[in-house]
């Protein structure tokens, strides 16, 4: 017991006095869901937009480092500010729900992203194209193949005349042992090529199963 007391005395102090004082402290945390809920009702649209963007980006970052539970938690917080989110961030959010198998929520957000992005001045129509592509993958996962094909053709039509659209991450379908699977590409993927390849894969799958 005595030696343990001496050991404790030898431990470096957790504070310093003098002209440069510092001390280790802690502050009580507040549940982020409570704070976000309080701010969801705020009148300040710009604040809500920034908070929504923050959570949407955090969700994407967590997904990229393979922490889907944390990604989902951040995406749920972003949902509180969904009304203030710009369309690009809505698509990000939809993709997080898609990758965490929250397909119904992904579909709602991506449909909203398509509507919102059609209002944005974007002659190359990349924003709706990406949302159409992700929604097509949602529908394919839900086995709504006809809807998926229609969304993919919307995506391909929107990108007509464009050679390359780089995306950080995309899910694409492939067939293995007669079953449809999905794989994520995390290197820079070309949406133009992926949308055409995915459409061809889905058509082959549908024809081989006479769906």
């Amino acid at each position, binding site marked *: 017991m005595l030696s343990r007391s001496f050991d404790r005395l030898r431990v*470096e102090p*957790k504070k*310093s006095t*003098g*002209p*440069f*004082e*510092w*001390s*280790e*402290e*802690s*502050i*009580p*945390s*507040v*549940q*982020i869901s*409570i*704070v976000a*809920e*309080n*701010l969801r*009702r*705020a*009148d*300040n649209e710009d*604040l809500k937009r920034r*908070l929504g963007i*923050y*959570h949407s980006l*955090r969700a994407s970052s967590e997904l990229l480092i393979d922490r889907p539970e944390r990604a989902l*938690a*951040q995406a749920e*917080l972003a949902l509180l500010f969904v009304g203030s989110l710009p369309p690009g961030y809505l698509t990000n959010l939809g993709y997080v729900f898609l990758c965490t198998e929250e397909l119904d929520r992904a579909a709602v957000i991506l449909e909203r992203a398509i509507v919102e992005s059609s209002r944005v001045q974007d002659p190359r129509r990349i924003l709706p194209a990406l949302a159409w592509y992700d929604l097509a993958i949602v529908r394919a996962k839900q086995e709504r193949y006809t809807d998926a094909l229609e969304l993919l053709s919307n995506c391909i039509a929107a990108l007509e005349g464009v050679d390359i659209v780089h995306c950080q991450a995309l899910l694409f379908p492939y067939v293995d042992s007669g079953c449809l699977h999905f794989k994520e590409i995390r290197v820079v993927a070309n949406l133009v090529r992926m949308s055409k390849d995915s459409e061809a894969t889905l058509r082959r799958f549908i024809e081989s199963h006479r769906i």
Partner: protein
Amino acid sequence: MNLDFAALREVLSDLERLSESSARPLLGKIERLGKFQLDALGVLSACSGFASARQLWLVRYITRGDLKWEALEACAEELRVNGVIEERDGRLSFYGDDFDRIFVKYFAREHGVRCEVQDSNPVQHLQRSIIREVGIQGVGFLTTTSDEDGVAAFRQIASALASPTEAETSFASREDWAQTAYRLFSEHSSIEEIPVVRVNLSLPEFGRLSGIIYFESADALRALPNVIEKLRSFAGRAKEINGAF
């Protein structure tokens, strides 16, 4: 395009062809500066128009401990006589325009020295220097604008954010604190008590500075012992120079 000293030299040659060279005598003076003088110029121009040489040295010595006051004072006089810096009401200013600032930054970089002319106030400069010398990504420093204690200020903001009626107004009144608190609650959602470091600095010719050092992520938080080690060395040097005033 990469902006480096060679690119700036080309821009300068173009300016010379346009007979602008006589309008830029400062550049020749800068090119004649040695490594030590460039380093000193970086220290003396960090708060251009807002701080005294003594304040600027104080920040450098506390955070790095590698520059003696006498050496900086002598160099400041030399730079002042050469017209590279000027002193008004006890505050030092860099004597050039925006192009000269960019030129000196890249010229010093070529010599392996950091020399950035900035218009920060001394408190912002101290804040940034502490964080730069701590050198860990995701570690930040919030300061209070008065004698208010940093931890008390944070608790007040946290309590406001937890209240449905005060959350929005806390962003309006103290946005940087509210934003930081929000991010910390989001990043450290699995812990009930978030570790921070309270800092109070009180030195003659500088006034009083209070605040907290915070950790934006779990990774940054793991570096707490390294941060403490740095703060210990800052505190030691602050004590040492306090006696010398």
